[in-house]
């Protein structure tokens, strides 16, 4: 479990995070959503230790990050898997070497053992026969799978994903979402996903926090998000034409049901 308490972060005079507190639970897909510029990326980078918070604390299963020594922080980072927005695969390495990288760096595993584990996770992310291809030779969806494989290969306790669906077609996005959720449950890890993709929110948002101008505006689940009357959430969720139309038809259905109920009562 990751617990954050009252974190604040500024860049110059601009306050990006304004006292955010929440918990990200183990075995669940926790989503951070919000419009562009709401502070999502800064929040995830702060959780990862790339930015130090100006105020507040972040604890990973009771270990308060700011109180850890340099070596303890590095050790904690080996328990973290990260899927970057652009995948961030190492250009100079093929798929197999990219996935094997954390094992070569942080374990005493040797050749055959590493190869077996790499093949195991590549199979897990449904990526076979791509071991010797370089990142520029595979599609965006495949790159995301490799990034997920690299993130989970060393059995992390925490998995962070920064907009894992960006640049992917809707079908591949769904597959990636499902994959992340399955892995989260299977390995019982704490997954935090930064997204503004509403399909992901509805599909895998077991816990959602909504950021607006650096403030946590709302917190709930994917079921609660459709029922909330919070104005900012409604505007965000129904900002796309597709969702607007779905909402209008749902409201029409509700209205018809209400009328039918009234008619039944009158009769």
């Amino acid at each position, binding site marked *: 479990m990751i617990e954050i308490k009252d974190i604040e972060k500024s860049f110059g005079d601009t306050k990006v995070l304004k006292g955010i507190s929440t918990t990200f639970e183990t075995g669940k897909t926790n989503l951070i959503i919000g419009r562009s510029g709401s502070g999502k990326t800064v929040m995830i980078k702060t959780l*990862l230790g790339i930015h130090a918070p100006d105020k507040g604390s972040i604890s990973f299963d009771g270990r308060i990050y700011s109180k850890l020594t340099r070596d303890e922080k590095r050790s904690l*980072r080996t328990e973290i898997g990260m899927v970057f927005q652009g995948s961030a695969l190492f250009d100079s390495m093929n798929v197999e070497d990219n996935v094997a990288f954390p094992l070569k760096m942080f374990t005493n595993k040797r050749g055959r053992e590493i190869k077996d584990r790499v093949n195991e996770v590549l199979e897990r992310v449904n990526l076979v026969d791509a071991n010797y291809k370089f990142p520029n030779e595979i599609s965006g969806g495949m790159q995301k799978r490799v990034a997920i494989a690299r993130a989970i290969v060393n059995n992390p306790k925490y998995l962070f994903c920064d907009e894992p669906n960006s640049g992917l077609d809707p079908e591949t996005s769904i597959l990636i979402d499902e994959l992340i959720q399955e892995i989260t449950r299977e390995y019982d890890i704490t997954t935090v996903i930064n997204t503004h993709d509403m399909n992901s929110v509805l599909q895998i948002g077991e816990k959602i926090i909504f950021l607006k101008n650096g403030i946590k505006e709302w917190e709930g689940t994917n079921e609660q998000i459709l029922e909330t009357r919070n104005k900012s959430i409604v505007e965000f969720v129904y900002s796309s034409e597709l969702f607007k139309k779905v909402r209008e038809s749902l409201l029409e259905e509700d209205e018809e049901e209400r009328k039918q109920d009234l008619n039944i009562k009158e009769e």
Partner: protein
Amino acid sequence: MIKEVFNKPTKWSVMKSLILKDIDDLIIGSMGIVAFISFFIGGVVAIQTALNLTNPLIPKSLIAFATRQSVILEFAPTFISIIMAGRAGSYITSSIGTMRVTEQIDALEVMGVNAINYLIFPKIVAFTLYPFVIAISMFLGIMGGWLAGVYGGFVGSDQFLEGIQTDFIPFHVFYAFLKTFVFGMLLATIPSFHGFYMKGGALEVGKASTTSFVWTSVVIITVNYIITQLLLS
């Protein structure tokens, strides 16, 4: 940055392959252009010296002497280092800069890897072999001078061989290799710094490479002056 390069080293089994790759990319990969430039510069120095020796009282062996001195003292260590700032320096800045803009450096840091050590230390080690490149450059420069001088009809082969042995001061070779070693360290660190700490996108990678080349050249020329002043004057 320099302190961080030697802090929390990367596992030796991984580092070994990184060092070998950088030796291949930066040292062996540069040999072609270094050999080509050295050979022809040596030839040009010999021809220019020959054409300026109009006084019949000056022995022809001076052509070889001037070629040797020019190549060993300046052309090989300094001129080739400026070429290397363009060739290897730009490669270092653009490769590390691209890793920065595509979040590959963030990925390393998030994993708990000391990215500075991982990326820059192998380049520093690779550049400890830079004096070998310059030794080859010196040899080829003098060879170029010999071929241009002899086959251009400016000097006899015997006279040339006599000239390159005239007033030979071993300390000059030490001076040349000392500054070569210093230039090697500058070539590894300045472009790495510009690549590692760059901000922005693809356009900025190009700008960082240019800035890195300019700064590396300026520092090499300045350090060259300081070392020369300290050791030779």
